[in-house]
């Protein structure tokens, strides 16, 4: 055995396991979706031409996009606040942000069931003060999925951004203000551009996360607001349509890759320092 082969022997077990239990399974479900006698894309064109299926695809994109936008708008100032607070507070604020992130996503979605449900906290409160006469339908709506996704992924956005913003010199802000910018303008013109790499990485995490999440749409979306992940599960189990499930599986993988590529392209345009890796 020559010295040169050693690294490959060390890497082999992991590579073999990944090929056997990730790559081959993926190929085995996706390959058949392109065959129907000969090579065909009809399964995919049929998926997107079907109004019901396309509706689910569109809802998934829309919900993920809105959730991502909210996470950016809410996350940037919050992360900026954390990065500017004194050291002794920063640890506590980071813990508050990390705690939901490390808590099980079923628990986090369940919390919103108790808040948004038919006799949940919001309806209970609104009925008591007499603002509404019958309970609002808040749960099992797209709105509920969006709130749930924001709740799920906002900590990820904030933590990613704090890492970037901590490295920004606070004197830059003072310089901008000294030069006559008011605080909001200084923030938009100075802090925001500098946090672009963090916003991009965070957005990729939030967007792909919401797009492929299963728990939140399952618990908060109900049967009328199905997303791609819940649709895949439904096809594979209740509907017994394995081919359909495999088609959705590939669509989810490709959509994830496209989103990552797209955000990196945007990052390249906005940030001259080159591509951001996620």
């Amino acid at each position, binding site marked *: 055995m020559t010295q040169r082969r*050693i*690294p490959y022997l*060390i*890497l082999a*077990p*992991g590579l073999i*396991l*990944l090929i056997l*239990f*990730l790559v081959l*399974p993926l190929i*085995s*479900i996706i390959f058949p979706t392109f065959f129907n006698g000969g090579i065909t894309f009809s399964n995919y064109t049929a998926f997107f031409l079907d109004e019901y299926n396309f509706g689910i695809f569109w809802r998934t994109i829309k919900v993920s996009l809105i959730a991502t936008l909210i996470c950016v708008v*809410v996350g940037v*100032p*919050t992360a900026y*606040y954390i990065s*500017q607070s004194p050291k002794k507070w920063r*640890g506590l*604020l*980071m813990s508050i942000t*990390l*705690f*939901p992130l*490390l*808590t*099980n*996503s*079923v*628990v*986090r979605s*369940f*919390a*919103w*069931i*108790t808040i948004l449900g038919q006799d949940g*906290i919001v309806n209970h409160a609104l009925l008591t003060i007499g603002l509404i006469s019958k309970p609002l339908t808040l749960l099992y709506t797209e709105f509920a999925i969006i709130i749930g996704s924001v*709740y799920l992924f*906002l900590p990820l956005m904030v*933590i990613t951004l*704090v*890492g970037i913003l901590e490295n920004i010199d*606070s004197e830059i802000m003072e310089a901008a203000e000294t030069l006559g910018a008011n*605080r909001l303008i200084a923030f938009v013109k100075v802090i925001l551009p500098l946090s672009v790499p963090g916003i991009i990485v965070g957005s990729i995490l939030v967007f*792909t996360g919401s*797009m*492929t999440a*299963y*728990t939140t749409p399952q*618990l908060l979306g109900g049967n009328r607001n199905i997303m791609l*992940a819940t649709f895949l*599960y439904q096809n*594979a189990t209740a509907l017994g349509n*394995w081919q359909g499930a495999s088609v959705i*599986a590939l669509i*989810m*993988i490709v959509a*994830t*890759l496209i989103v*990552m590529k797209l955000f990196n392209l945007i990052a390249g345009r906005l940030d001259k320092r080159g591509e951001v890796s996620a």
Partner: protein
Amino acid sequence: MRKNVGLKIFAILVFAFLLIPLLIIIVTSFGTNPTIQFPIKGFTFEWYSKVFTNESFTDSFSLSLEVAFIATLLALVIGVPAAYSLARHEVFGRNWIKSFFLSPTIVPGLVVGYAMYQFIVIKFQFPIIQGLLLGHFLICLPYVIRVVGSTIEQLDFSIEEVSWTLGCTKLQSFSKVVLPNITSGIFASFMLAFINSFNNIPVSQFLSGPGVTMLPTSLMNYIEYNYDPSVSALSVILMLGTIILMFIIEKTLGLASIS
């Protein structure tokens, strides 16, 4: 920094948004009403004892712990040497191999679970538990490769050279010099992999069967048909687990190491 009241109020609202839903769960777990209520009436620990006597919860809890533990260990045994090799050896196509090792994070979890279920359980008739372990191994591996890999890259290469000069074989040098110096990275990746495996739902969703259900899945199934405070009680127990883990991480590595 000068005071910026608007930003401060905004941030406080965000932290409230993050914490209040979880605080509400804690409160509802003590209510006496058979369905969840807020504000609660009365005060009881009954729902906690319900959790501990519910076999589907206790069984799936121990299964989740076992699977997370074994999958993480397996990921360490295979991942630590691989991470070392990627950092230190001249490997053809290093970046490609590294991306390949990280690829389980790019494929959506539900797709991983579904593909493994079709291929391993249906086609090759593996027992579900083995599929479950392998699926969770795939979740854990990227954390080991990434965290341990960056720890090794930060380790001074010359201390290894010194040990070789002093007569260590490569293997001795790895176990006596490298490993003791990367324990913090190994511990951090263990924690991250364990937490993510324990909390994972999408991968486990397809890979469960009679007697083989992970805790998050079993909790999710329970929520679909029940709306009683034992769900809150179990949630509180899980949150306590999170707090204990965060405390351990903070005391050993500092929370910054995992964020």
